[in-house]
């Protein structure tokens, strides 16, 4: 995932409780509209009904490393994903791709995720792995930490290359943390006293659940880290019977 620097960090406005779309119906509509056969079969695989308990939902944790924060101008450097469900995270189905982004790698982003020019030079364009990627996501609900990255970036990359974007439901583990730690605006007393809000970044969130420290900035490790975090969050304050519509966005 992309690690936001402080000035860009999540600004602490409370999450709205707007209800998520009816994804099952939305997928039917999108399947009819899609022109690209890969997208058609992705949407045709459908998604679970909103009332499905989380324990019955097939999931896949996904993380992107990107060259920057803006989906319009920056590109994807690597993708990591791990299939899972509420009981097990399955590394045997994990995948990791290094990609050739639309723009040159800045030396700053090399420092962050450790992927070098020569690796990128040998890497494929996202279009060459799209089929494989969409197959891995088909029929599953995607788990990310901070939904401002993966979905918009994939959408932008596809718009750019095949002229149509893509949509899918995600469970955002950062948003699940925000529901607890950003449920109301920071009070004036806290601001006057300079008290910092509880961090909802991936590593800090994990520490609250006694999850081990994993080195950040590797797409596959970060995907794994989000997968574990989701299991911990559900164990902590939801139940296996929680309907998916209360969790996804």
């Amino acid at each position, binding site marked *: 995932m992309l690690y936001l620097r402080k000035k860009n960090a999540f600004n602490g406005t409370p999450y709205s409780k707007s209800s998520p779309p009816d994804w099952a119906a939305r997928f039917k509509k999108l399947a009819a509209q899609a022109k690209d056969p890969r997208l058609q079969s992705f949407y045709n695989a459908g998604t679970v009904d909103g009332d499905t308990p989380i324990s019955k939902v097939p999931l896949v944790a996904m993380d992107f490393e990107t060259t920057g924060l803006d989906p319009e101008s920056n590109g994807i450097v690597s993708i990591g994903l791990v299939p899972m469900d509420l009981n097990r995270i399955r590394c045997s189905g994990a995948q990791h*791709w290094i990609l050739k982004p639309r723009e040159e790698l800045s030396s700053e982003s090399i420092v962050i995720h450790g992927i070098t020019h020569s690796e990128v030079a040998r890497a494929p364009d996202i279009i060459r792995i799209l089929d494989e990627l969409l197959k891995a996501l088909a029929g599953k609900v995607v788990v990310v930490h901070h939904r401002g990255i993966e979905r918009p970036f994939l959408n932008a990359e596809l718009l750019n290359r095949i002229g149509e974007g893509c949509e899918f439901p995600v469970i955002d583990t950062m948003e699940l943390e925000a529901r607890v730690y950003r449920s109301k605006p920071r009070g004036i007393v806290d601001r006057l006293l300079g008290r910092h809000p509880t961090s909802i970044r991936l590593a800090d969130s994990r520490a609250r659940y006694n*999850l081990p420290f994993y080195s950040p900035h590797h797409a596959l*490790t970060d995907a794994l880290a989000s997968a574990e975090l989701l*299991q911990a969050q559900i*164990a902590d304050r939801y139940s296996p019977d929680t309907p998916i519509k209360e969790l996804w966005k």
Partner: protein
Amino acid sequence: MQAEQLEILDFLHRHPPFCDLPEETLGWISQNIEISYFKAGTQILQFGEEVDALHIIRSGAVEVFRRNGDLHNRLSEGGIFGEFGLLRNRRVRFPAKALEDSLVYLIPETIFNELFENHELFADFVEIEDHTRLRHAVSRKEDANELMTSKVETLIAREPVTVNIQATVQEAAILMSEESVSSVLVVNERTGDPAKQASASGYLAGIVTDVDIRKRLVAAGLSYTTPVSEIMTRNLASIEHHQFVFEASLAMLRKNIHHLPVLKKGHPIGMIALSDIIRYESQNSLFVVSSIFHQYTVEDLKALGDDVKACFSRMVNEDANSHMIGSAMSIIGRSFKQRLLELAEVELGPPPVPYCFLALGSMAREEQLIVTDQDNALILDNRFDPDRHDGYFKALAKFVSDGLAECGYTYCKGEIMATNVKWRQPLHVWEDYFTEWIENPTPEFLLNSSIFFDLDGVWGKTDWAAQLRELIVREAKKSPRFLTCMARNALRRTPPLGFFKNFVMEKDGRHSNSFNIKRRGTAPLADLIRVHSLACGSTARNTFDRLQDIIDADILPHGHGQDIRDALEFIAMVRIRHQALDLEANRTPDNNVEPENLSDFERKTLKDAFQILSNAQKFVRFRYQSQRSR
């Protein structure tokens, strides 16, 4: 494309038995691992259900149980479980439960089977019964040392968060929020000894937790300015900084708590959590103590005798020192007493007035070994009325005493037991006893009673025992005649002069085939150290701790304290090894050591040690006889 799992690979590299596997095998395992998270208290494996993977703890802690519900083992990061089920009919044999929030890596059965077929070290590791594996582990020296000799203070990660006892609950709550802690220690600075440097932390008075604030303040509708002292929990368990890690784990186990404040001379210096110590645990004294508290009849307790002996032998084999073996055996002894008292109260009903059950002698000094008799007494509440209440306490004393005898703690020949009405008295009578003994001592009486000056409360109002100890310390210093009498008794038993291949040379030139190493070695050392400790006002109970106080008080000539410590340790270890050998050979262990069974090195070193004892006795004679003439 199979993706490389760097974090998992790195973890496997650091933990046996995986660290011994070839690199490409580790890569293959890491790519096939499954992961599951368990919140504290969740059942991970249920007896009899199907098991499909080897479980490895990545973070957190897990308790493994026997089928009957007894605790079998506690595991932390790197610990594995589920292997028994995988090896035998794929059904869970040892249920497991998350003790803390835990992340578990799972090696699927097919992968496990391949590892088991192709890697001998791996197969050995998972197949051999786990107590044998523990022995393998501790036979590696560094582990053995860590397990057996680490002090609690080495586990302290940060200063404790404390508030003064006068603080309000709101002040405490603000501090807790700032420090991101869920509990705060309450300290009392008024009782500080002005001679000592005032400590910022003060003396531990209690603890306030999030739950206390919720239940005792908010729910009760009290004001935020209520003093913390009104809602804190008092009388909390704590541990001294110099105690051993295994003692901390015993304390937590016995009291069923997960956090323990660490004290240094009464001041809190840190807090340790169960997870800090879990990696030091092995299946020894801890599990004996645990099983003592799970028995419901004297018969069942008696059946644990073999476990106690096995625990003693294991500690000897694991190179534990005499202090640790003595403490472990004493804690086991105390646990038998405590459990018997619990059972007695079930049978006889609750006591009519409060009481304190006392341990005397070696148990109170934490120097009990495998051969020991029971020395105990009862302090009763001052409202005690013999006509109305003594029937109960007589029955209670008999129940415990008979029970202890069943469990291998023989009756005290000198009748120093709570069954003797003289030693079953209210607190004020005990205070009179000690005052009389100290103010008007007779050597004859004290000869058989030095044991009363090593006392410890094991059950009930244990602070009464502390009160008596304070009385002793206060009065003894003021009574040279008492110290002289105690000193004279400490000189009655002398060490043998020397050793030859197969006999002991006595001072009068007689030869003996054996000598009693307790009567001629450890006991006179404990006696003379007790005299010095009474003289310097030490409240310590353990002989090594007393010796430290004596050294600090500068009573002994320079360097002698360290010599005496070495001598005591060596003599005690010869005695302990002698008993362990007896146990191994299926003989009844005793204290009679035959020189022909000692190595040349032991004979030579024992001779040196006895010489130090002899010199130390001369110094006692010099010091406390000259006091009499003043």
